[in-house]
């Protein structure tokens, strides 16, 4: 017989502590849709996505009812469009973005990720056209996410791409200035991008993946915080144990939902992404976990150490709970989506420099950070280069999702609404990095890449 305490614990986690499955993401390969005629290629893309993901939303809702656990997002990731569009004679990748939007509307998913290019070592056919079309594609669609991988431990950092991405981020914000600069909120610049990540905006379906696959992203900062809160006097190693146990339980839920979804959809189950993904909802914050550990405010001295421990404990607990772990797997620290982070920035406790340090010990990187609208493209590029360097040297994924708030200055707020939350405009250095960025070229792969 089931234990009464266990049953009530599960219900409390879901009802009071915001436990949910953050996303079920179906990865779909579009390699068989490649065609020299762009319109025919788009039609094939639409057909393939809508036939594979026809039941995705309905199945997700059925599982929600069956297990009584909310599944917040049902999403799709596809093969990087730069690969699919490379063979097209007509160089107009925006047509693919519009096709993806049409497919998203038909399937009822809230995001399709994969308007992407992988250029860590250099640009191949189709890459430049796709990257240049990103601002337009993000402005004329609502549910399409874009990502560009500009570096990796194996390849080094493509500084020409870094320079270009600074301009693209800025242009994307300008093009959507009338819509709270939402464009760059859907654009991630990666180093070491994972090919099976279910989380947006950086999700795409790598070329080494199966034709169609189900990946699941779990969440639960609220549950971890509540568990830490119950042990106010525990030593830090005891806290790590508590977090491990909690992460185990959360991940088991992801594993169960993922295998059930894969069974119902007749699609192989890929990975569970063990991430603590915050939402703007009260109590669903990673910053509050760190504060619960004993920091007056997230961002003060000690934050990096607490985050390192949290990130490690989440992975240790989650690894055994799932048959295959992948994606980003770690704690996310998106500023605008985390009530505690927003508080800390407004309070002056959390600065960009500290966030950068934090990204060296947790998953992802400088995520959902609003910067003044008059920032120069080369400064954005330099921020991207710094973050990519952390990822390259530490053999980990790092990403940058900066939003230049057009017409706003330091201290103002930019409101996105919904899960993207709202972000305070943060201070950036006023000194120029122009000369460094204008050099272009490539940062060679570090010693860490020579593992053979």
């Amino acid at each position: 017989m089931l234990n009464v305490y266990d049953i009530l614990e599960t219900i409390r986690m879901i009802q009071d502590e915001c436990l949910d499955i953050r996303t079920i993401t179906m990865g779909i390969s579009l390699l068989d849709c490649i065609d020299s005629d762009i319109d025919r290629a788009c039609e094939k893309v639409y057909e393939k996505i809508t036939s594979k993901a026809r039941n995705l939303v309905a199945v997700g809702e059925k599982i929600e009812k069956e297990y009584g656990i909310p599944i917040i997002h049902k999403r799709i990731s596809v093969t990087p469009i730069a690969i699919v569009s490379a063979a097209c004679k007509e160089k107009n990748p925006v047509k693919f973005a519009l096709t993806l939007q049409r497919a998203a509307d038909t399937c009822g998913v809230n995001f399709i990720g994969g308007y992407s290019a992988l250029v860590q070592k250099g640009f191949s056919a189709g890459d430049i056209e796709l990257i240049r079309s990103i601002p337009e594609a993000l402005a004329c669609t609502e549910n399409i996410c874009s990502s560009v991988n500009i570096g990796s431990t194996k390849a080094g950092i493509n500084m020409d791409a870094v320079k270009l991405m600074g301009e693209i981020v800025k242009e994307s914000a300008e093009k959507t200035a009338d819509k709270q600069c939402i464009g760059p909120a859907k654009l991630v610049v990666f180093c070491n991008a994972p090919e099976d990540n279910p989380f947006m905006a950086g999700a795409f379906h790598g070329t080494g993946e199966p034709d169609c696959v189900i990946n699941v992203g779990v969440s639960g900062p609220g549950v971890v915080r509540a568990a830490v809160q119950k042990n106010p006097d525990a030593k830090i190693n005891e806290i790590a144990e508590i977090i491990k146990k909690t992460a185990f339980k959360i991940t088991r839920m992801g594993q169960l939902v993922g295998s059930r979804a894969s069974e119902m959809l007749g699609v192989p189950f890929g990975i569970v992404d063990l991430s603590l993904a915050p939402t703007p909802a009260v109590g669903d914050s990673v910053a509050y976990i760190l504060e619960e550990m004993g920091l007056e405010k997230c961002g003060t001295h000690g934050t990096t150490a607490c985050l390192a421990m949290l990130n490690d404990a989440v992975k240790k607990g989650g690894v055994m709970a799932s048959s295959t772990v992948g994606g980003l797997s770690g704690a996310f620290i998106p500023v605008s989506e985390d009530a505690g982070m927003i508080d800390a920035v407004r309070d002056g406790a959390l600065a960009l420099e500290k966030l950068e340090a934090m990204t060296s010990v947790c998953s992802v990187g400088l995520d959902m950070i609003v910067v003044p609208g008059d920032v120069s493209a080369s400064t954005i590029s330099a921020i991207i280069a710094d973050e990519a360097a952390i990822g390259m040297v530490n053999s980990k994924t790092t990403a940058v999702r900066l939003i230049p708030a057009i017409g706003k200055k330091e201290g103002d707020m930019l409101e996105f609404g919904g899960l993207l939350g709202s972000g305070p405009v943060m201070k950036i250095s006023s000194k120029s990095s122009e000369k460094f960025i204008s050099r272009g070229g490539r940062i060679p792969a570090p010693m860490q890449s020579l593992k053979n």
Partner: protein
Amino acid sequence: MRAVITVIGKDNVGILAKVSSICSDCNANVIEVTQSVLQDMFAMIMLVDISNMNEDFSVLGDKLSELGKKLGLSIHTMHEDIFNSMHRI
């Protein structure tokens, strides 16, 4: 296949009867009931067999949460797998 129904809220006459009558309507067989009343607070956990139901499982869940709303109780209907996978290795 079994499901767990939990009812938590202010004690009232006939909660058990109303919940079991909905189970019976859907042909879900009640296997075990644990309930306690602590200072007016009612907590019941009911294990039901759902293999021979004449309705979809989601219908049972919808009917029970509707009852919960009417009586001011929080009623959750969940497949037992979620508890097994979360708390057992």
